[in-house]
């Protein structure tokens, strides 16, 4: 019987190399980007309008001035107008929403109308913030803009709240550190702990003696899904990259978020 033997000596030059390349990306028509916020607290109502730019252009992208922006309460039919207080930034300091009610944002610009509706869920209070630990080996929450400045430790903290058992709840935690709004997107749904006290921590970049403010916002499902998709888009982590699904009509990007607000502040030890 014949036998076959094979000897292979192979020298793999296992160098992976990374370099900048030119990709001919299509020019895209500018699309409107709307970031609308309405809180149950006065002074938080704002709508920011910008336009997308081509890949090779610079950020920040241009603002859109001269739009007509209103917010209508579907329960009372009352219409409030927002004023442009900075280029592309429309606000109304006396306007606030009521939990359980639905609001519609209407933006008119360039002969186009963009409409979005959002419901403020029932109020859930942020009871306290429990500091767990801090370690410097936290993963980067990078995305296109990188992981922020300086050497930061990751602090784990649990926002303590009691989830209402009767409904499905969605939450967003907006974190401010020493008066600087943090870019990280923290969202939670009550899937798996409906009706219980939350014990899921946030991983916040902070150092000792920092003052960290956590604004717990109850949001509706569409807004939750938007921020879930936005997070995937920024981290390039989805299997199929796409624009986060917006609750705004007429092919606009962005969101209209009507939410509750419950704030607690801690000093990192």
């Amino acid at each position, binding site marked *: 019987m*014949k*036998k*076959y*033997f*094979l*000897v*292979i*000596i*192979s*020298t*793999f*030059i296992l*160098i*992976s*190399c*990374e*370099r*900048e*390349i*030119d*990709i001919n*990306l*299509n*020019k*895209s028509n*500018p*699309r409107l*980007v709307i*970031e609308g916020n309405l809180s149950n607290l006065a002074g938080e109502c704002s709508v920011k309008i*910008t*336009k*997308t*730019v*081509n*890949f*090779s252009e*610079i*950020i*920040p*992208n241009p603002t859109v001035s001269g739009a007509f922006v209103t917010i209508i309460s579907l329960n009372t039919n009352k219409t409030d107008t927002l004023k442009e207080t900075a280029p592309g930034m429309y606000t109304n300091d006396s306007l606030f929403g009521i939990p359980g009610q639905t609001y519609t944002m209407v933006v008119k610009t360039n002969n186009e109308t963009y409409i979005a509706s959002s419901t403020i869920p029932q109020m859930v209070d942020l009871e306290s913030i429990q500091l767990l630990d801090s370690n410097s080996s936290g993963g980067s929450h990078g*995305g*296109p*803009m*990188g992981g922020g400045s300086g050497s930061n430790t990751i602090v784990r903290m649990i926002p303590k709240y009691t989830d209402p058992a009767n409904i499905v709840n969605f939450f967003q935690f907006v974190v401010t550190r020493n008066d600087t709004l943090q*870019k990280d997107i923290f969202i939670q749904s009550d899937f798996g702990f409906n009706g219980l006290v939350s014990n899921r921590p946030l991983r916040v970049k902070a150092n000792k003696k920092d003052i960290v403010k956590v604004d717990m916002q109850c949001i509706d499902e569409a807004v939750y899904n938007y921020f*879930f*998709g*936005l997070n*995937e*888009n*920024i981290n*390039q982590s*989805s*299997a*199929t*990259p*796409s*624009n986060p*699904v917006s609750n705004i009509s007429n092919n606009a*990007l962005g969101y209209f978020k009507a939410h509750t607000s419950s704030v607690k502040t801690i000093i990192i030890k």
Partner: protein
Amino acid sequence: MVLGGSNYYILDNFKNIIDTINQTSPVKNYINIEPRLSMNYIFDNNNSLKISYSRNTQNLHLINNSVTTSPTDKWVMNTNIIKPEIGDQVSLGYFRNFKDNTFEFSVETYYKWMQNQIDYKDAADERNRVIETQLLYGKGRAYGVELLLKKNKGKLTGWIGYTLSRTEKQIDGVNKDQWYPARQDRTHDISIVAMYDISKRLNVSAIWVYQTGNAVTFPSGKYEIAGQTTWLYTDRNGYRMPDYHRLDLGLTYKFKEKKHFNSELSFSLYNVYGRENAYLISFEQSSSDPSKTVAMQTSLFRWVPSISWNFKF
């Protein structure tokens, strides 16, 4: 047949899990026949024509993602929700031999209709435990023409092959319900293989391949939202990875044959001209100008030399 014993799910129209099935009896049966028909018409010794039809079903499914940052694929079996993929293909081919069978030439064209095609929904999470919640289903089509010229005799042998093809999917909920290229859609595919006997013992070979890059999704623009740079996407798989090509060379020496032992030594070099074929492409902030964004390409091995010694006894 989808056997029981593990978890199967019932989903609503929004892909939320509304029920879980866990039974030991079979969950679902799929029965498909695979008819095949093939006809050959032989004009003479050198010319022939071939027509065929076949239906194939596939019960193991490859799900490609559309990103360039981690080219991972997933294989899944049929479930109560994922149905067998069915393909119907027709093809027509013409075959001709020249110069006393020294050369062979063929041209074949095909068209394939596919049912129960699978792709991820927009913004899918491929790490999701219940993959069915991330999938959408539709149809597919593939068509193309293949040309092949082969030399079988003489000191120089080898072939030149060229394929022009298109593979597309149409799935409601993806790419505004329009047809779009499948990830593995390759417009051009060329391969040239040549072997030359320098002497009785020494033989050299060369292979050159060229392929259009995979269809992938790249951003077409960007904007800032919630203080972060966000990508603007337009079409699913609307872009291409850079073209793939490389040349490999080989040299084989046959040692003198002995009664119970003969052996040969081969040297080869993969990717002779060190083409940096793209493995990953990601988009990041430029280090020199943070307001700009750049595309970064990662390629794996460039040159791979190897030596092998084959022996028989």
